């Protein structure tokens, strides 16, 4: 019976077999050959949650926290739980309208889905937080809750440039870190926050969590087997004196310039201010982005730390250094004198001029420093580079430049802050012989760059370098690389980051004590009877040097000489130096007018711990003075208009023009404080100047 069509039973069996083989082949393909599904499954179900530890705290020398952590709150929302919410009331509390409310809800859903919480408003302002806290019961059951979030806080509102700020990592940081940082991580972006990032950040913890198909977290993965705990960041103890810092910041209000104060004994930085300054707390919290863009767009550059990155001609403050070089070379002795007739005629043209004439004001080194004799120091510069020890002036200059480098000028000192001055083609600090060869087509001699001896010509230095040079003099021959951090909490041998700050740099070894004493005495005379009398402190022997440096700037395409920079360096007390200060106030005139008093007040505060009543008055006077250069307003206006125009072109939206040009400021006229004549820089300090100008003007007229 069943013989009929029985062969078909085999066909059916073969059909079964073929189908099963096909399925098995696909299973083999999915489960054995293709590796991607495991990764996909991990991505599906395992959430890698990074746990951020609290960052380390930064203390000043007395243990006061300059940079601390605090808690702010994010308003979080779980969209799926939002039911029966009094939207209008919530909007009222948050000062938003219902359209914005809806927009934010949509954003939250897009970011994390309906079932997982995402932030509705980040970093609530204290007033909003208080309002929400009060009404928490209204919203708690409906998907809204407040989540604490640690942020940085600067309790003294001070030391913005030193402390730096944290910000989200950008793509370059991620690329450079080799995967250490991930998008969304916060990292120190400047200051100590950036330099000691690895110390302050601690160790990030990682939690692996399981999520379900609706993105809800349902528990830990493999019972936390792969989790690593977060370790809090370590704190830093610095040399800073926050009270001196606050005072210095107050004094530098509305001024462009910088202040650096160093403890010579250790190289520890007591205070560092760059003007214009900003409140570091503006770069934390809810207003962060707005404030940051404001700072970035300010042409005065408040984010720039001029103390380490600003370069200024040191002017007369360089003179003691020039003297020490000549002494170390053995070219002069402390008793070397120069008969200055009021001008230096060594090069024939009678330049530079000197404030004093005759009277033996440069009869020896001490007197020369006290009187700040230009001729004397130009002359010993020439003596140094033209010494018979060297084949020619180029060798002599190279040797002299090495000396200056040893003083920390024209080099990167290696302070524990990012963004320090680094010599480059445009800003060399102390120019190389090749630069002079290029500029003067290989034919130059010690007369060409004569004014290097008095801290001018192409020489520039940062305030930090000047302060460091003062330490070298105060210490009589050695310095420690300036730095902020005294010790890291729980310091380990692996913390090599601060090792280099503990090595002594003994650069001047051949100068005997007496020679040093004569330089230092000269500097003390500057305070006692010379230009720096303003820095005199009762009961303390202060040594100082003022400087008044010419400076130029290209404004509207023309090189214009601006008002001189006020430069001041000092250290005190003479016998046992505790503090060395360099102050530069841009376009503020004589060194003794603004920079001197600032340094004096800081010394008084630091050494005596208090200020005398008359000093307090002086503080008020200085801090209320506005020395912001006039050209800044015009430059700001120009920059804003260009930016406004750029966005207008880009978007065809004319509101951008209004947005960028600040309404309060009418278009300022051309800066009147800058000297008018165009060619003035060619004829420095000459009486024939007026005639020359007239002559050139006539030529152009006819």
């Amino acid at each position, binding site marked *: *019976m*069943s013989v*009929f*069509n*029985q062969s*078909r*039973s085999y066909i*059916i*069996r073969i059909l*079964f*077999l073929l*189908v*099963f083989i*096909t*399925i*098995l082949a*696909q*299973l*083999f393909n*999915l*489960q*054995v050959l*293709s590796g*991607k*599904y*495991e990764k*996909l*499954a*991990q991505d*599906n*179900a*395992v959430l890698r949650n990074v746990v951020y530890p609290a960052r380390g705290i930064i203390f000043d020398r007395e243990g006061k926290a300059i940079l601390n952590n605090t808690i702010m709150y994010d308003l979080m929302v779980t969209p799926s739980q939002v039911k029966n919410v009094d939207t209008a009331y919530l909007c009222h509390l948050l000062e938003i309208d219902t359209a914005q409310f809806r927009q934010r809800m949509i954003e939250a859903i897009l970011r994390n889905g309906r079932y997982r919480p995402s932030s509705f408003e980040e970093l609530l302002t204290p007033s909003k937080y208080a309002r929400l806290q009060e009404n928490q019961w209204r919203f708690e059951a409906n998907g809204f809750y407040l989540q604490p979030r640690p942020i940085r806080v600067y309790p003294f509102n001070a030391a913005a440039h030193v402390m730096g700020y944290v910000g989200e990592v950008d793509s370059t940081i991620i690329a450079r870190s080799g995967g250490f940082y991930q998008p969304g991580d916060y990292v120190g972006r400047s200051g100590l926050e950036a330099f000691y990032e690895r110390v302050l950040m601690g160790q990030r913890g990682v939690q692996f969590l*399981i*999520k*379900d*198909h*609706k993105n809800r977290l*349902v*528990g830990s993965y493999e019972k936390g087997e792969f989790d690593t705990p977060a370790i809090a960041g370590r704190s830093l103890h610095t040399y800073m004196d926050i009270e001196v810092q606050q005072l210095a910041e107050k004094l530098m209000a509305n001024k462009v310039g910088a202040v650096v104060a160093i403890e010579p004994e250790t190289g520890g930085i007591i205070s560092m201010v760059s003007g214009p300054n900003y409140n570091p707390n503006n770069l934390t919290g809810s207003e962060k982005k707005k404030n940051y863009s404001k700072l970035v767009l300010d042409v005065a550059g408040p984010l720039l730390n001029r103390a380490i990155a600003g370069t200024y001609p040191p002017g007369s403050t360089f003179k003691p250094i020039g003297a020490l070089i000549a002494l170390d070379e053995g070219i002069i002795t402390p008793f070397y004198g120069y008969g200055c007739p009021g001008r230096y005629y060594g090069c024939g043209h009678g330049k530079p001029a000197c404030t004093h004439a005759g009277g033996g004001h440069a009869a020896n080194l001490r007197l020369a420093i006290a009187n700040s004799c230009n001729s004397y120091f130009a002359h010993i510069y020439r003596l140094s580079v033209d010494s018979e020890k060297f084949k020619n002036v180029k060798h002599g200059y190279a040797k002299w430049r090495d000396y200056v480098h040893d003083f920390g000028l024209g080099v990167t000192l290696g302070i524990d802050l990012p963004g320090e001055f680094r010599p480059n083609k445009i800003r060399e600090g102390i120019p190389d012989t090749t630069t002079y060869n290029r500029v003067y087509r290989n034919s130059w001699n010690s007369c060409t760059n004569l004014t290097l001896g008095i801290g001018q010509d192409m020489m520039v230095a940062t305030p930090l370098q000047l302060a460091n040079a003062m330490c070298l003099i105060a210490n009589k021959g050695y310095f420690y690389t300036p730095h902020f951090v005294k010790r890291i909490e729980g310091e380990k041998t692996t913390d090599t980051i601060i090792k280099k700050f503990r090595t002594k740099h003994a650069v001047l070894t051949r100068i005997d004590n007496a020679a040093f004493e004569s330089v230092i005495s000269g500097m003390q005379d500057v305070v006692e009877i010379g230009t720096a009398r303003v820095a005199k402190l009762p009961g303390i022997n202060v040594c100082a040097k003022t400087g008044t440096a010419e400076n130029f700037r290209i404004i509207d395409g023309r090189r214009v000489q601006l008002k001189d920079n006020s430069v001041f360096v000092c250290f005190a007390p003479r016998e046992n130096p505790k503090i060395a200060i360099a102050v530069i106030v841009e376009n503020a005139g004589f060194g003794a007018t603004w920079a001197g008093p600032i340094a004096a007040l800081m010394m008084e505060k630091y050494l005596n711990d208090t200020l005398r009543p008359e000093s307090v008055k002086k503080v008020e006077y200085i801090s209320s003075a506005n020395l912001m250069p006039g050209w800044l307003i015009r430059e700001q206006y120009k920059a804003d208009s260009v930016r406004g125009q750029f966005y207008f072109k880009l978007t065809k939206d004319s509101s951008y023009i209004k947005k960028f040009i600040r309404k309060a400021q009418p278009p300022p006229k051309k800066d009147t404080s800058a000297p008018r004549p165009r060619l003035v820089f060619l004829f420095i300090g000459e009486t024939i100047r007026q005639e020359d100008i007239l002559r050139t003007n006539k030529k152009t007229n006819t």
Partner: protein
Amino acid sequence: MNGEKGKISSGVDPILIWLYLLLVFIGVTAIFAATYRDGDPVVSSFVSFKTDYSKQFFFLIIALVLGTFILLTDSKFFTATANLWYAAGMVLLFLVFPFHSPIKGTESIIRFGGFQFQPAEFCKVSVCLALAKYLSMPDLDFSKQRSQLIAAAIAIVPALITILQKETGLALVYFSFFLVMYREGLPPTILIIGFSIAVMIIASIVIEPNTLAIILTIIAAIVIFLNRRQIRKRRSALVTIVFVWLLCVGIQRFAVPFIFSSVLQKHQVERIYSLFGKDNPYTGAGGIAVQSTNIKKDNTADYNVRQSKIAIGSGGFAGKGLLSGTQTRYDFVPEQRTDFIFCTIGEGFGFIGTTILLGIYLLLLFRIVMIAERQRSVFSRCYAYGVAAVFFFHIAINVSMTVGLAPVIGIPLPFISYGGTALLTFTILLFILIRLDSDRQMVLR
């Protein structure tokens, strides 16, 4: 043969019993793995009748009792009442229309009390019995077209009713009975034509309509060219070729769009298209075919299969172990205790596990075919082939859809998927076969 032994065990095929027990054990374990939540007390929740695995466990006990009863029943009972079963099945199917309770898009479930019943599922037994009864009629000449049509009608009528209940997947199962008819002498041309039509439908999904029409025309022209001598002799050959060409173009141009836009539901069309990695072009209003270049792709059809593939693929060679699969444990795969239960096994036990499971199934199918061939009675043989066909269709389509080889058709994996009706139906199907087989020496009519 083993008449000396007890009444039930005499003649009962032990291999089938063992395979059955093995499969239901795997089934309950898999449902447990898919739905168990950490921290639940295992033993107490197994008897609580609250969790899915507990319910399945109780259904299994009922199924075993039912199976025992079937083994105790006289085998003649099934031949005698085969037509009655069919009638009962049809009545139940029709009862669905007034009494169904709408659940998740299907209209095929009757609910009384806390109990759900799906007649379309159960009706497979009826059709299997009725078809066997019809084919085993002594005076039947199956080579006649009339009897072939009647046999086809027996299978297709319930299928059509099931389609009306929006259970296209279950309806397709009834087409598997053509395998029985094939075994009993249905001319292979019918199957070949059916297969060709299937190829045409797939081709018209995959290939752009105009291109396909041109290809068909070119093929027709080549065929005419090659057969030009025969055509010169016989005009009818040309007519046949032109007719076939017209039929193909007709299917491609009118039948497929009509089926996709009017007969099938939107989600089913999407599933079919997503299988081939294409967008559903019939999303326009009123079923007008719209080329969907700028219509946003609806990923829901895709999602299930993708998650299912991820789950199975992530199992790797050796699997993650019972209760360790992240995909199946945290509900990434939808319907994973019912239609996508295979994922749980794929993720938990890897390629080894899936191979073993498919091996067990293949063994079951081969054993059933072997049993079918050893029957003396045509009724038993037809019935056995019916069982084999139904199991084969269920296994092949269910597993294929989880690995992305077939469109997502909601049909359960025999003995393993969660669901009382399905488990009972498959048990009844298998145990009737075992009962019939134990009396294989008898000639049943």
